[in-house]
């Protein structure tokens, strides 16, 4: 009887570990499937027909149709530069260096991947419309209240979690396999300014 109890216990622990590790590696990624650059994470083989099983599962779960990394790079973050979860309660200063690509866009979503309703119908800034400073950098202010320069509204619903997506089409620097290369220091820095 005791042996059976141990066996069931072992099986339960194995179930939790197996499912848990699978979920984590599919949802969040691992060094096998993603590259991490500061808070930004990018799935390298997303959309690629020869992708590994983790990337395939991640893509199928997401319900998206991304371009492969030779046409576009996607960088996603759920946190600020210090690893704290992005929240609609807080104001963030996003400072970006010039990105060498045909087109890019920085968009904000809620935790479910939906756009955030706001009175100015502003959901993103792209390379064609962002206001740049004299040195070519851009400063985006993410927060619930109107701000000068580039204001990316995070809506009136507090304690909403946020996701930032930076999509870069046609990166001009590519590696030997044609994958667009974005130097880590050219990805926007996200600083939390204050919280409600």
């Amino acid at each position: 009887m005791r042996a059976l109890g141990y066996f069931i216990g072992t099986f339960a622990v194995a179930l939790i570990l197996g499912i848990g590790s699978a979920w984590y590696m599919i949802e969040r990624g691992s060094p096998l499937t993603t590259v991490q650059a500061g808070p930004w994470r990018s799935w390298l083989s997303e959309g690629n027909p020869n992708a590994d099983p983790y990337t395939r599962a991640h893509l199928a779960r997401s319900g998206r149709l991304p371009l492969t990394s030779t046409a576009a790079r996607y960088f996603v973050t759920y946190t600020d530069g210090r690893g704290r979860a992005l929240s609609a309660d807080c104001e963030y200063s996003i400072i970006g260096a010039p990105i060498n690509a045909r087109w890019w866009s920085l968009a904000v979503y809620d935790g479910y991947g939906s756009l955030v309703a706001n009175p100015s119908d502003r959901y993103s800034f792209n390379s064609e419309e962002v206001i740049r400073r004299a040195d070519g950098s851009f400063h985006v202010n993410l927060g619930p209240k109107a701000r000068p320069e580039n204001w990316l509204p995070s809506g009136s619903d507090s304690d909403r979690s946020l996701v930032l997506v930076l999509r870069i089409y046609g990166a001009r620097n590519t590696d030997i396999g044609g994958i667009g290369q974005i130097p880590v220091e050219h990805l926007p820095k996200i600083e939390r300014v204050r919280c409600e």
Partner: protein
Amino acid sequence: MRVSLPGLYVALGIVLAGLIHVVAVLTLPMLAPRDAQARLAALGPANTMIELPPSAPGRQVMPMMAPDVRYAVCRYDLSQGPVRLRARIADPLWLIAFYTPLGENFYAVVGADMKRPDVDLIIATKDQTVAEVGVDAPEAFDNVVVVTSPVVEGIALIRAPLAGPSRSAKAERALKAANCTPHSSSS
């Protein structure tokens, strides 16, 4: 030598956890209930170019769609024969990408790489021959590219990134001109 009993359980647990992990990773793509194909099927019939409404809060066909890209989609079904996709690339930023229902992007047309703006593609499986279609009017098929689809049912997605804040009307107009129709040799 006798293996200790707790050690045996730990070893068994690790092996079981590994097996469960592998099974979970491999079955998940098949269990995903709302994949892109299912979301797009709700919009309209196959073999027709459908312009997606601009993304807005609570009105997104797929999660995390770009708010500043306009999309048109053709959900193609090759079971009755090849499908033809024609579009005029209105901007070098445009991209036409072909997907399997699982989201694998097996072919892409990059606007910036095109020498001329008119795109004329015939989508066919590798068993379908489209060579004879050019016999009646060979010169008209000079620019036609045959895209071999690994799946009978797939997705062609045109992306028109907005080149500026007031360009959406222009992009939407240009996307309307794109079309997707069953291809017959008489056409």
